[in-house]
């Protein structure tokens, strides 16, 4: 091995490249940009303003946050549903005036005044909501008009009553506490804000109405077609927004007690900047309460600091405007390019070296020598089937197989001409196995492991396993259950080929050469699922050895078959049985002579073998070349080989022209015949074995029944 090659080997073993793509695929990644921004703002102003990070400063900020953030949360809810509410600034001012008028001038008690103020906000919101939601007016213009009207109303009220309101002062302690009180230094309204924010978050993320909001914002048309009351949902968001703006105004009134005419002027731009800066998307569907709070904190920090820095007039609007532009630009660009970036970096190849390829030339002494054994193979279900990945027989010789339509199909013995849909599972069944009670177990792609009783009752066995502690992607959900077998003690062992890819793009895993797959055990006695072996390269076929403590499994992209002890003195150990297959092994099953049949789904090629040792080449390919032009392993021609437990390969059977069975994913021996399945094939092949035991069935070999 050359120096550069061993460098590549160690570099890819030590640097976890795949983590970058996994981090980018997380939902919380959207928060990192505003969060970094917040840190930058804090660090910047800390260096400019002495005493910036003081307790008093924080309390002051918390109090302001307890006013503005209410408005921002309301606006964020409207924006999440795909609208916008510009009237919040005016509602804020109206609520400020109303609160002071009720409490100072009219002398109402708080329990009456506070609901009244909230109701006024809700009423303005309701007008917006009726206009935008039910009449379907344009949110921007409509709320602009209400902004102007409400502001004019506030001006009129101030003209008429300002002096009377300002003359009187409330002596209510509770009112004073609302404005200036705190618990252990934390302002009261900030505590309330946190409580409301948590509640709003729970409603948005856990409740039916919250999901409706996000659905309407994500795709109004789809939400409508799904039967969501789009108009009502939108209307209510404006009511909420109006109410929250009023609550913000209420606290403002409690703190300052002034009816100045410039209250809340430009507040809509401030909170809009805050929401967008935090990552609440314009146009709806993306964002959260937390994002709105984050954005508000940033905007308040910036504006307060600018004031403390004694910047000349004009600096604050300039910075705020630039901030809004920057936030929107980043938001738009990020939204547009995130999936592009993700698809560029997600595929992360690593170094893997396959052993020398054995010869397969016809006439050579190699056990893999090409022949035409499947020349006159019979076809079962020709044209009826689509993707019989695996085949299995029950104790009455009926044949079961899966199909892409999501069914398990049964072909009736003895001639397998007549077929019926046994059950409809809804997902693509892959590996199949029977247990001692004739329950059919199936690995269903994207769904997990299911059991079908002879009475056709479908039972979900497992779709979730324990989450690995240090895994960044959530690997608890079983996405790619592939093949299974059942141990003598009843435990179901199944392979999950890869945790990084799903049913539609599993083939991309071949480019990585990393052990992304695992073997999982389901225990029917405790109904628990545990990962028993992880970090294997596309584990595929699984077959019990028969000693009650070990199984054989095939690793497709690694072209090898290994033995894994799940019980007994060698528990946990893995030994390679065949290390250098000439192709990519798929399912494994028992043969009547005690050996094992292995289906090779495709054959190795020198080019792809070499590319596995050059990860940088594959990475470049994944980034620069269109997906359908990538170099993939050849899965167009395959064969069946027989191996013994000590790793000796005794024979191989080929379909030379590839007319009937170009890709073989499964092979099953039953009563002197070999049955062939293929995940991309339209038939099951049936091949007579001259020297096999004509009474041998796998059901008998496993469970002692005929």
């Amino acid at each position, binding site marked *: 091995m050359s120096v550069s090659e061993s460098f590549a080997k160690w570099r890819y073993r030590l640097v976890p490249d795949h983590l970058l793509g996994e981090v980018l695929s997380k939902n919380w990644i959207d928060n990192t940009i505003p969060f970094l921004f917040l840190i930058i703002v804090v660090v910047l102003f800390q260096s400019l303003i002495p005493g910036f990070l003081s307790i008093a400063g924080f309390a002051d900020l918390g109090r302001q946050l307890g006013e503005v953030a209410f408005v921002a949360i309301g606006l964020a809810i409207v924006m999440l549903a795909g609208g916008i509410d510009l009237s919040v600034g005016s509602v804020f001012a109206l609520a400020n005036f109303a609160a002071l008028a009720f409490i100072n001038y009219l002398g109402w008690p708080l329990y009456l005044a506070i609901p009244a103020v909230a109701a006024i906000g809700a009423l303005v919101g309701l007008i917006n909501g009726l206009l935008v939601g039910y009449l*379907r*007016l344009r949110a*921007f213009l409509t709320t602009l008009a209400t902004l102007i*009207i409400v502001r004019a109303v506030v001006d009129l009220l101030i003209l008429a009553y300002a002096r009377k309101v300002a003359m009187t002062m409330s002596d209510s302690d509770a009112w004073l506490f609302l404005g200036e009180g705190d618990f252990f230094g934390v302002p009261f309204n900030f505590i309330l804000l946190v409580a409301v924010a948590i509640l709003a978050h729970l409603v948005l993320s856990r409740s039916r109405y919250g999901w409706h909001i996000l659905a309407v914002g994500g795709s109004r048309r789809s939400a409508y077609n799904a039967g969501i009351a*789009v108009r009502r949902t939108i209307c209510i968001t404006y009511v909420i927004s109006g109410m929250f703006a009023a609550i913000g105004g209420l606290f403002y009134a409690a703190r300052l007690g002034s009816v100045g005419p410039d209250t809340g002027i430009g507040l809509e731009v401030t909170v809009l900047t805050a929401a967008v800066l935090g990552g609440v998307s314009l146009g709806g569907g993306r964002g959260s309460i937390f994002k709105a709070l984050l954005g508000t904190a940033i905007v308040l920090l910036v504006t307060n600091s600018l004031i403390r820095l004694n910047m000349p007039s004009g600096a604050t*609007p300039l910075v705020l405007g630039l901030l809004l532009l920057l936030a929107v630009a980043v938001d738009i660009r990020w939204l547009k390019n995130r999936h592009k970036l993700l698809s560029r970096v997600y595929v992360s190849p690593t170094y893997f070296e396959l052993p020398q390829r054995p010869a397969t030339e016809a006439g050579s002494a190699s056990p893999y020598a090409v022949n035409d054994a499947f020349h006159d193979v019979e076809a079962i279900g020709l044209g009826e089937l689509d993707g019989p990945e695996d085949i299995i027989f029950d104790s009455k010789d009926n044949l079961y197989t899966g199909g892409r339509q999501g069914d398990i199909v049964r072909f009736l013995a003895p001639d397998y001409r007549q077929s019926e849909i046994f059950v409809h599972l809804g997902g693509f069944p892959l590996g199949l196995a029977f247990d001692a009670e004739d329950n059919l177990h199936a690995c269903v792609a994207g769904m997990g492991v299911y059991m079908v009783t002879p009475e056709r009752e479908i039972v979900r066995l497992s779709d979730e396993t324990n989450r690995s502690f240090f895994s960044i992607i959530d690997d608890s959900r079983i996405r790619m259950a592939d093949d299974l077998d059942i141990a003598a003690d009843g435990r179901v062992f199944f392979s999950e080929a890869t945790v990084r890819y799903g049913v539609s793009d599993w083939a991309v895993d071949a480019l990585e050469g990393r052990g992304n797959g695992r073997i999982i055990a389901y225990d029917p006695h405790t109904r628990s699922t545990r990962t028993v072996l992880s970090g294997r390269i596309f584990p595929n076929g699984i077959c019990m050895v028969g000693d009650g403590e070990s199984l054989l499994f095939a690793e497709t992209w690694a072209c090898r078959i290994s033995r894994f002890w799940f019980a007994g003195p060698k528990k946990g150990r893995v030994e390679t049985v065949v290390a250098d297959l000439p192709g990519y092994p798929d399912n494994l099953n028992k043969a009547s002579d005690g050996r094992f049949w292995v289906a090779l789904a495709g054959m190795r090629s020198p080019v792809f073998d070499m590319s596995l040792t050059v990860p940088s080449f594959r990475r470049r390919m994944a980034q620069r070349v269109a997906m359908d032009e990538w170099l993939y392993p050849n899965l167009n021609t395959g064969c069946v080989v027989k191996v013994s437990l000590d790793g000796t390969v005794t024979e191989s059977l080929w379909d030379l022209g590839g007319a009937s069975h170009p890709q073989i994913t499964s092979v099953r021996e039953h009563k002197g015949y070999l049955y062939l399945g293929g995940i991309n094939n339209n038939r099951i092949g049936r091949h007579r074995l001259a020297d096999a035991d004509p009474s041998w069935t796998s059901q008998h070999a496993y469970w002692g029944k005929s």
Partner: protein
Amino acid sequence: MSASQTERRQGGFKLTQENIVFFIALLLFIGFSVLLPGFFDTSNLLSLVQNVAILGILGIGMGIVVIGRGIDLAMVSTMALSTAWTVALINRGFGTAEAIGLGLAFAAAVGIIMGVLVAYVEIPAIFATLAMSTVIYGFGRLALVDLDVIYLPDNAIWLRSISNSFLGVPLPVIWFSVLAIVAYLFLRFTKWGRYFYAIGDNRAAARITGIPVRPMTVIQYLISSMIAFGAGLITASLLASVNIRVAQSTMVYDVILVVVLGGIGLSGGKGGVRNILVGTILIGILLNGMTILDMPFTMQNIVKGTVLLIAIIVDSLANPRDEQTAQQGDI
């Protein structure tokens, strides 16, 4: 469709917003003429037209942007700050021509920046221009002028003369008419004008057809900013001063009101100069009547806001949008 509806369609009169608004304007005009003493009076009508000329000029600039499915909320900021700078430069001893040239260059730069933000950075026009209006005001206040109100020096005779009268007609009205005719010809008969309609009607289709969508968008904002500067010069000349606080007022919403009232749909591709004229006339009559009625400014705002609301409601009733055809993110 009932027989009477079919007949009405064939009759040639369509219940478009433009017709409705024109009809309302006519009603108001007749009503005010009868009811308000001093309304139907040559001098009052001339002052009415002169007062709305500025709004009309701004409306034409806004209309050109709106036809291309954009919106320019920074128009009034651009107008105020670019003219304020021009006047400030004259006060500092610059020649009138140089000062106007620099002011125009400032407005053009603002327009190009906005156009780039909308067309290339793909920020929604509403937000790009809203943010820009704050930025322009902040920047202008910080770097260009140091007072809120800047007075036109006495020696700027040339600048003062652009708001004189010509044969009894105030010059601003003539500038408005000239601009309206030029804008009409531009939108109707030039390649760029037709491009604006195509882009506003269906941006994706326009792009596929080979129209340089992005440069055209930049040009729209460039035009609206330069028209805003022109409107600012006329205002400065009329009032002999520039008040930059107008940038933070609701004036830009009056401009939108003119455009929307006239019937230029905000979804773009529709309408023309005629719609702006109709909108301007209605607003002019309304403002003038309210002034004669001695209505307080805040009350006028309520009326204007309500009229705007009614206009959008009528628009949405006449051209309903539904869940199947509404564009996602179309706020």
